[in-house]
């Protein structure tokens, strides 16, 4: 497992201070594919990294693969369509089971125990729906990779080799935010090996975890149900990351927040707001000091120390 340093959103830049403090880093590879068409707008990032960044240009490489390997492109379209449809159906299922959970929680059962049992059952159903979806997405991705073997196709293989060569000249990887689905896709397609040190924020950090949870309570016309998007790279374990939590979630609503904690357990929901810097020497699962999580009661705080 690499050393993983996760930062809060970089609207307020803290990356420069982090880099200055890491004396063992000489050259840095960057992934800004989450910015999609704006991938190459990385002058400011390169400046923050002291002019020693090499952008792996994974988004542009992906577009090149799609253009030069039409057979693979068609297969990938079909695969993406299947994933989208699975996500749509999962969303429908979630709406039903989360509504049921909310209804049961509001129900005025005369005996607390009866109501608590019903709530526990409803939560189990929600978790079952989540887990089945995550498993199906993981399986679909494995099957696609096994069937289409990007490593064995000339264009993806050519880019993989080029990326590997660039990575050999660097000893750290910086992954920026953006579209987490795009990031995950290109990181897998070009089979990035785990480097010695990874620094990431926002979507970039989410992509490093085992489980990627999509969330926002503040999208107009959206019921605000958080949804799992499937597995991440797994370089960071034991946690689900919530960047921009205070901007995106109703953090003052403990019932709403507790629902997230329940759904992600035993992994902990780690809140990544502005200024956060967390370092996992070997990618987890123990949370580093200073991590703030969503507690079981829905409040945000530091995890309780468990006596050994």
């Amino acid at each position, binding site marked *: 497992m690499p050393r993983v340093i996760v930062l809060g959103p970089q609207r307020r830049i803290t990356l420069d201070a982090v880099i200055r403090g890491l004396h063992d880093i000489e050259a840095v590879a960057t992934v800004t594919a989450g910015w999609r068409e704006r991938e190459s707008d990385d002058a400011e990032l390169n400046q923050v990294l002291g002019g020693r960044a090499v952008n792996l240009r994974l988004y542009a490489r992906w577009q090149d693969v799609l253009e030069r390997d039409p057979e693979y492109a068609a297969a990938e379209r079909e695969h993406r*369509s299947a994933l989208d449809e699975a996500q749509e159906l999962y969303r429908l299922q979630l709406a039903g089971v989360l509504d049921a959970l909310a209804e049961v929680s509001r129900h005025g059962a005369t005996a607390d125990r009866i109501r608590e049992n019903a709530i526990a059952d409803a939560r189990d159903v929600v978790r079952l729906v989540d887990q089945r979806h995550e498993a199906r997405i993981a399986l679909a991705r494995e099957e696609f990779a096994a069937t289409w073997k990007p490593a064995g196709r000339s264009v993806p293989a050519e880019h993989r080799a080029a990326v590997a060569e660039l990575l050999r000249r660097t000893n750290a990887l910086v992954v920026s*935010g953006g579209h987490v689905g795009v990031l995950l896709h290109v990181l897998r397609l070009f089979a990035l090996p785990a480097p010695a040190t990874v620094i990431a924020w926002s979507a970039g950090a989410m992509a490093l975890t085992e489980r990627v949870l999509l*969330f*926002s309570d503040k999208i107009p016309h959206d019921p605000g149900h958080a949804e799992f998007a499937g597995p991440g790279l797994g370089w960071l374990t034991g946690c689900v990351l919530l960047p921009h939590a205070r901007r995106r979630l109703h953090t003052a609503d403990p019932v709403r927040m507790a629902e997230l904690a329940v759904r992600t357990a035993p992994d902990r929901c780690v809140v990544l707001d502005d200024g956060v810097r967390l370092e996992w020497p070997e990618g987890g699962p123990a949370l580093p000091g200073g991590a703030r999580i969503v507690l079981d009661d829905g409040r945000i705080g530091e995890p309780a120390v468990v006596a050994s």
Partner: protein
Amino acid sequence: MNSRLAINRLKDRKPDDAAVDRFLARHQAPIVEQDRCTFLWRGEADDVRLVHRIVGLPDAIPLRRVWGTDLWYLVLELPAGSRLNYQLEVRRGEHHERMNDPLNPKLSYSPVGTSSVCFADGYTTPDWTEPDPEARPGELADIVVTSRALRRDQRITLYLPARFRRATDYPLLVVHDGGDFLQYAAAKTVLDNLIHRLDLAEVIVAFLHPKDRLTEYANSTAHARFLTAELLPRLEAELPLVIRRSGRCLMGSSFGAVATLSAAYRAPLVYGSLILMSGSFVFTDVGAADHGGGPAFDPVVTFVNRYRARPRRVADRLFVSCGVFEPLIVRNRSMVPTFEAAGMTVRYVETPDGHNWENWRDTLRDGLCWIYPGPQKWVYE
């Protein structure tokens, strides 16, 4: 409360012409004071009326004259956030003249002309309907589809989102009265902005241009066949579209909403979603009763009556909206339980507005973003 209105303060002063001049120079008509809107007209006349289409109020409401002056006024209570399209009708002897309010520069545009518009307290034109230089523009391009069903060539204006790529599958939206949506509801600007803000998924839109909309949109078999058997297959063959029904949406307002519903009714479960704005869903509870819509509505009434008698699931999700000032509000409210009873998920929105293009423009975000939500949940900058 009334005594505090500007018009009442003027009246208290028993104004002369000069005072009226100063009053009009100081106030923008209509004068909006919380939930009261004072409409003004100045000139010699025997009668002045405000002509509007707020359901429940008389179609023409007389203005009163400020004693001793040529200033006419009317105070109306309008709900917060509402918009009212209106004109003034001035009678001099036997001569009637209908006009936009000369004291109000705000106009509402439609295919049948302009009318004055009053923005009640709290209404602001949504910023996502105005051009945003940050939003990368999509492209509009016309194609022609030769239709055997319609027995003519049908022009279609296609909207392709910015950064359109053939390697991506896009959902499809088909818009009735497409030219009017583009011209009077700022549809292209709205699409560009909502996509730019990640509120709306990147989408391909086919804007339709009817030739004889009162016929084609009034439950026409030919129109439905054109959409489903001719247009859809061609678009799906030529464009990178999501080939499943959740990626197909029909939209229309007024008669266009009838065309939307009737096309989906004839092709159940081909389309995943419908957007029905201010649908002209005129029906009669007693079959032979006078529906009041005139001959153009006869086929509509036949269709809606049949649908209400035997509701059918025609899509998965329906966005239904209507302005509370519209005479159609009761019809649309009545359709919601009918749609739900047929097993469709319905999102119903009422707007403080009338049967006009700005209402449909302002409702676009609610409808489009519910049907095809953007990737906001996937993006963490």
